[in-house]
């Protein structure tokens, strides 16, 4: 055990010391999780080259000249993918100057693009990176309108190139929050939605020489323009919705707007209409452990929700919707582990370990249509790899190494510095301020 730890740290130091692009790395001997729902592979090998996964599994040869990382006794997995977050938008939630998740007094809604608000250096990025999160879906919070704007997919690397995919989706509120934003009723929210898409469509048509954006439009030009790719089906529409009836109404929107590429978020009552969601082929990024009627729209909430949707054939993954979504994305493996635990509760529906891990790795990537690039250790994926000291879903486990795009990442962060300073709370020869 000591030996492998040592070799791992030596290799890690070597990786850090040299730029990794154009380098081949083989991680050997670990319990390899591909992340696509398949079972872990004992003694597997993962090969990365030029920042991408070349091969992973058993019987994979170590290429000549490869930097070898011995992961014997460890788990090797794809980096975790936070299926819903506000990561990078917030340093301290209740300190407005540091919180860019929402612009309630701004002029725009759908046109908002979170990209310029993302700060790769917020403390939470480093903290969550050290916990094994390597990618995150980042959605803005809706301002005074149902449309929140365009979200991004980011990486948690220790650099300034955080945005993997900007304008990755439009985010819209169509449940209780949507109702409130639209003036107080769901009827108004759905009308606001329809009107916006109709105006976007008119704008698109106008650009092709048909009647221009009308003067009585409710949407400003930027917001309408931002919705053109949504109504055309070129940009995914992530819809936050919880109540079963609301879910069905959202699915019905495709009758009027057939090109919509829907993804549902939240979906606490999804199990009640799981067959309809499955039949519609709409993926879901669900809250994992909601089990209280914390709002009336979650009256039927149960931790079995994801398991039941999965059984019904829904493509479902885990996201932390309005749930500590700026700082504690590292709860997602705990949540996944809880779904595994449910399998042993009579009457409950959980996930197998393999499904649960996929729900926090390839699942969100699949929901956003980027699973050919991210979320697993299948060949061709970006080299986001985490080496763990144990079962990644278990509470006692932690990463010992994190790579993003094949680049070894520092695991240090502000919390770790505070921990080290106060390991012994008493001052020594000098005040704590000198202890670093």
């Amino acid at each position, binding site marked *: 055990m000591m030996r492998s730890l040592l070799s791992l740290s030596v290799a890690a130091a070597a990786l850090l010391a040299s730029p990794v692009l154009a380098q081949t790395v083989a991680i050997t001997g670990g319990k390899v999780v591909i992340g696509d729902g398949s079972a872990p592979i004992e003694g597997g090998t993962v090969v990365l080259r030029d920042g991408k996964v070349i091969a992973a599994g058993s019987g994979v040869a170590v290429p000549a000249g490869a930097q070898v990382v011995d992961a014997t006794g460890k788990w090797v997995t794809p980096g975790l993918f936070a299926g819903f977050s506000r990561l990078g938008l*917030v*340093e*301290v*939630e*209740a*300190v407005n100057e540091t919180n860019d998740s929402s612009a309630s007094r701004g002029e725009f809604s759908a046109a908002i693009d979170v990209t310029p608000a993302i700060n790769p250096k917020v*403390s*939470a990025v480093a903290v969550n990176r050290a916990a094994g999160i390597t990618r995150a879906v980042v959605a803005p919070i809706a301002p005074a309108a149902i449309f929140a704007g365009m979200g991004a997919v980011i990486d948690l690397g220790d650099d300034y190139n955080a945005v993997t995919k900007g304008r990755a989706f439009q985010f819209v509120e169509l449940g209780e929050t949507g109702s409130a934003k639209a003036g107080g009723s769901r009827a108004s929210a759905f009308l606001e939605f329809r009107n916006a898409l109709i105006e976007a469509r008119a704008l698109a048509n106008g650009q092709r020489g048909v009647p221009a954006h009308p003067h009585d439009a409710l949407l400003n030009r930027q917001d309408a323009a931002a919705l053109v790719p949504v109504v055309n089906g070129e940009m995914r529409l992530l819809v936050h919705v919880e109540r*079963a009836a609301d879910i069905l109404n959202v699915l019905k929107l495709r009758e009027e707007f057939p090109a919509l590429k829907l993804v549902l978020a939240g979906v606490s*009552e999804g199990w*009640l209409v799981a067959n309809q969601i499955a039949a519609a082929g709409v993926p879901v990024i669900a809250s994992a*452990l909601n*089990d*209280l*009627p*914390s*709002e*009336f729209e*979650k*009256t*039927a*909430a*149960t*931790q*079995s929700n994801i398991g039941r949707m999965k059984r019904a054939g829904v493509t479902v993954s885990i996201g932390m919707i309005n749930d*500590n979504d*700026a*700082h*504690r994305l*590292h709860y997602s493996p*705990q949540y996944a*582990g*809880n779904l*595994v*635990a*449910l399998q*042993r*509760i*009579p*009457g*409950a529906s959980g996930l197998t370990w393999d499904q649960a891990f996929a729900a926090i790795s390839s699942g969100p990537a699949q929901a956003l249509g980027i699973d050919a690039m991210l979320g697993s250790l299948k060949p061709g994926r970006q080299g986001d790899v985490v080496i763990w000291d144990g079962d990644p*879903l*278990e*509470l*006692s*486990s*932690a990463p010992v190494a994190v790579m993003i795009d094949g680049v070894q990442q520092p695991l240090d962060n502000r*919390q770790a510095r*505070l*921990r080290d300073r*106060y*390991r012994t*709370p*008493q001052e020594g020869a000098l005040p*704590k301020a000198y202890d670093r």
Partner: protein
Amino acid sequence: MRYGYLAPLAAIAVVGCANTTSAEGPSSASASAPKAEKVSINENPYPSTYKPYPGQPTAIRNVTIFDGEGGQIDNGVVFFTDGKITAVGDANTPIPADIMVLDGTGKFVTPGIIDIHSHLGDYPSPGVAAHSDGNEATSPVTADVWAEHSVWPQDPGFSRALANGGVTSLQILPGSANLFGGRSVTLKNVPARTMQAMKFPGAPYGLKMACGENPKRVYGSRNQKPASRMGNLAVNRQTWARAAEYKARWDEYERKGGTPPARDIGMDTLKAALEGKIQIHNHCYRADEMAIVIDMAKEFGYKVSTFHHAVESYKIADLLRENNICSAVWADWWGFKMESYDGIPENAAIIQNANACTIIHSDDQDQIQRLNQEAAKALGDGRRMGFNISDATAIRWLTYNPAMAMGIADKTGSLKPGKMADVVLWNANPLSVYARPEKVWVDGALLYDANDPKRRPVSDFELGQPGEGDTK
């Protein structure tokens, strides 16, 4: 004087008079007797009506036991009867022949989990405005409010805490908008029609206080005092000074008789706190503020039981140990407000390593369902920094330590003969993410059984709703 504590807020209510002359009507007593009868403050006007539910004598054997006080017994026996723990020991512990015996192979037993910081019932589900009963945010000093008067027993959160979290006792606190938030109440986690029927018999009351951002924000934003941390302290000290005067007047009356002091409901609570009858639970994030509160407590002669949300306890764990004050903390909450900025996941472990009293609390309707998991995370982070902390110690953070801090450790919080049979049988090590309660007993009554849908409480609110009686 804005807070008016010395003014007679209420009529001089003569309650709880020990030897009322029953022949006389209530009004004629004071009218006809020039020498007024000695009055006293009724300390228990809303008494517990909780009665343990029937249970059957039960033994669990071949089970791993965390006794709550830091002990672990492998392949052990837990035996309880008549609502009380009868015996806890190794495999040789005798079990009567005629009782129910459960095989605990591969399973674990702990005392019932205790959450020292909950708002269930006061901020129930659904969280609509009509249910928002946890903060009397109308004055920074509302020592006169009692959390129990807001508890809605039909909050579905109680049943989730029982079934998923194994929680058998919990303290419901007022919120933290105010410096003096009011009285807390300790409940047994049993479904009931009334708050009184949940009330933990004989548990002392608590007083909720709050440091820091919340009071100064809530009142400062209204251009009221306090608008700063120094304002917080000023109002705190003035209030304690008044409480000391109030207590002195009552003490003098007790000694000399005469006209009873004007009754002040809020001051009753502070007087009891000064007398050590009420435990003080102080919401306080920052290390420097905790140190100031420690001195304030010495200034006015009271004792802080526990700092809640103490995300910076790790910076002053030595000071907390010296002053014998518990820290009730989350495993890893941080960054949601400025005073939580320095929260670290090793907080609990560093407090424990300094031999200061460590408690994991929830303050949350969701995390109360997995306090065992929160403890496990904190334990793992402590071990990773090289601290040698046992599993059994981590369980103590959720059982015996909160029981001590709440003043109920003589009754529950550990598996010791004679204590309440508040017991959880887990289907695996509760410090694993894969563990869930299999059975939960409160005072020896089986109130949750994962294998029996009929032993799953369903609140009135949930009846007739989609998902009624579901596994949650």
